[in-house]
């Protein structure tokens, strides 16, 4: 009865100082929002990062750094120095320990979106998240040379549908003059959203890519290029000369290290073979330093929030001396004065941190649609959970602990004042 009574007194006291209490709560709430925001986007980034690719045991490319190859092949970031010859790809695909090998060619773009040339194997075996395959939202996988399958964000942002013609650009410039406008593609399929770079990719067939580049062998349009008709192109051998990377699945996952060693130690036309999961972890370690810095900063901001509790409590003590001696007069002991002020601090912490959790959720609701439309990803797994609970508990306990400072000052005052307070 007494304890709940003190708690209700503390709540009434805070209500009475609504203005300053609200500001203090806001300070705590904002600091908790920053902390949770950083923590959640970190976790979500990590998750979507790790979810980008799965089910692919190895990625093989021309000799380069492991992270370079991963960034290029999976995230379509940067350009590789060299490519892998088609014959080398065929050798790799023919290895007995390999179940499937999907070649990809990167380098062209369409209005800022990456163009990835590949074959049916890629659509059959590319997996993301927890072994989720690529699925069509509408249409079908390309069958003709000039067919294209676009990711969900490409279709949504450019307002594309089945049948829309596509002009692809040479290289990555989206507004350049080097458009392959002589060989338009047609959208035959739209993929379901994946939350991976696939959403922002235009997929075409390997032959389509070669066909598109007929007359462009030197890197720019040949003056005779226009004289080659589409019918003529269809009669050519459209097998590409080289590929950017090969995605590989193994028959037996336990041979992964042996297979990689075998690939990496090839003397003739050497290649780099990476295990995507491993390289993702290495890459994340690089990002991790920055991420720890952010967490450190947001913990400091929580400390600032805690200090604002302390400031508001300590500055109110003098004007509350009379109140304390009234409470003493009706039978409150020093213990009760201590409990009253400690619980006021605890309540400020609890309400502030809980408000912070709400703010974070609202922020995520606002930010997610923006993220989806700009980077094709959303912050996943951000529903309030254990982290939020632990944060609220920690902040409240911390507030209770620092509450002992003003509480102790008030208790000492009230003992010194007795009932005869000097006003």
């Amino acid at each position, binding site marked *: *009865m*007494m304890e709940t*009574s003190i708690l209700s*007194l503390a709540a*009434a*006291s805070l*209500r*009475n*100082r609504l203005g300053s209490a609200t500001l203090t709560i806001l300070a705590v709430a904002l600091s908790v929002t920053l902390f949770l925001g950083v923590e959640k986007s970190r976790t979500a980034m990590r998750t979507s990062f790790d979810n980008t690719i799965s089910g692919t045991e190895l990625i093989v490319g021309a000799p380069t750094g492991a992270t370079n190859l991963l960034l290029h092949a999976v995230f379509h970031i940067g350009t590789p120095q060299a490519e892998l010859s088609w014959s080398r790809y065929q050798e790799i695909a023919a290895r007995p320990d390999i179940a499937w090998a999907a070649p990809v060619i990167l380098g062209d773009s369409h209005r800022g979106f990456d163009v990835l040339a590949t074959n049916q194997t890629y659509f059959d075996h590319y997996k993301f998240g927890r072994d989720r395959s690529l699925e069509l939202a509408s249409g079908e996988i390309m069958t003709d040379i000039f067919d294209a399958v676009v990711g969900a964000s490409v279709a949504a942002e450019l307002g594309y549908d089945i049948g829309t013609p596509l002009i692809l650009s040479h290289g990555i410039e989206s507004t350049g003059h080097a458009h392959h406008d002589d060989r338009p593609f047609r959208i035959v399929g739209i993929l379901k959203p994946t939350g991976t770079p696939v959403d922002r990719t235009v997929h075409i067939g390997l032959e389509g890519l070669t066909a598109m580049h007929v007359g462009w062998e030197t890197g720019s349009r040949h003056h005779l290029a226009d004289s080659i008709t589409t019918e003529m192109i269809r009669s050519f051998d459209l097998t590409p000369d080289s590929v950017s990377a090969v995605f590989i699945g193994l028959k037996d996952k336990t041979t992964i290290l042996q297979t990689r060693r075998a690939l990496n130690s090839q003397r003739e036309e050497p290649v780099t073979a990476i295990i995507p999961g491993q390289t993702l972890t290495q890459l994340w370690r690089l990002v991790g330093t920055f991420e720890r810095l952010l967490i450190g900063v947001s913990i400091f901001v929580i400390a600032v929030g805690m200090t604002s509790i302390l400031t508001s409590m300590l500055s109110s003590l003098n004007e509350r001396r*009379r*109140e304390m*001696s*009234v*409470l*003493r*007069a*009706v*039978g*409150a*002991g*020093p*213990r*009760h004065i201590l409990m009253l002020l400690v619980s006021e601090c605890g309540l400020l912490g609890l309400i502030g941190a809980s408000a912070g959790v709400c703010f974070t959720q609202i922020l995520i609701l606002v930010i997610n649609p923006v993220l989806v439309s700009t980077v094709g990803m959303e912050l996943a797994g951000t529903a309030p959970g254990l982290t939020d609970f632990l944060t609220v508990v920690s902040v409240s306990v911390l507030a209770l602990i620092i509450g002992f400072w003003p509480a102790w000052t008030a208790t000492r005052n009230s003992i010194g004042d*007795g*009932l*005869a307070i*000097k*006003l």
Partner: protein
Amino acid sequence: MNSTAITIEISDLEYAWPNQGPLLQLKSFTVAAGESLCLLGPSGTGKSTLLSLIAGVLEPQKGRLQVCGSALEALSSHQRDQLRADHIGIIFQMFNLVPYLSVLQNVLLPCRFSPRRRNRFERPESMVEDAKRLLCQLGLDAPDLLSRPVRDLSVGQQQRVAAARAMIGAPELIIADEPTSALDRDNRNRFVRLLQDEAKASGATLLFVTHDQGLASQFDRTVTLDDINHITTPTGTA
């Protein structure tokens, strides 16, 4: 000694504020149960300090203090707090009320700290009813008054709420420390009369401290602090 007949019994008491000369030195001072006593003395002679000692908020350096049947020197500070909560109602000169509680919550405040005073009432509702009755007898019968924030009240009204709070749950001893000095003459006399009547009705002992000699005639007995205090050159506070 019959503890039911004597509410306050002080012998050989000495008190000095820290780092100051002695303020109080009382050989013997007794207040009988049910008595209404006026303790007179100018400001700064240690009247409030004496009340704090009786209320068990301060501890004397020497001497014995028997209040409502308990020897204070034998009690822990927690037990003294409980004794005060259970047996004593206190009214200050002003600023008596907790600003963030309503009138009713202020009146019922002692019941939060004293199970004994709370348990005088069979049901929580009868506690509220008694608070209403006390306020009504003290002339505070406006219907919306109970839930009003206390800062909306006049000083006179606040003092009457404080009186109701001191008397809720029928404590044996009511201590009033210059409760009328912020009131005008008419209100002052009326307030003292109300306090007297209420104390008499519940059988409580009333210890009323004032520097206003004009009020002395309304009490059973008047004592001047200088007459019982052997320290004649006070150095302390009011």
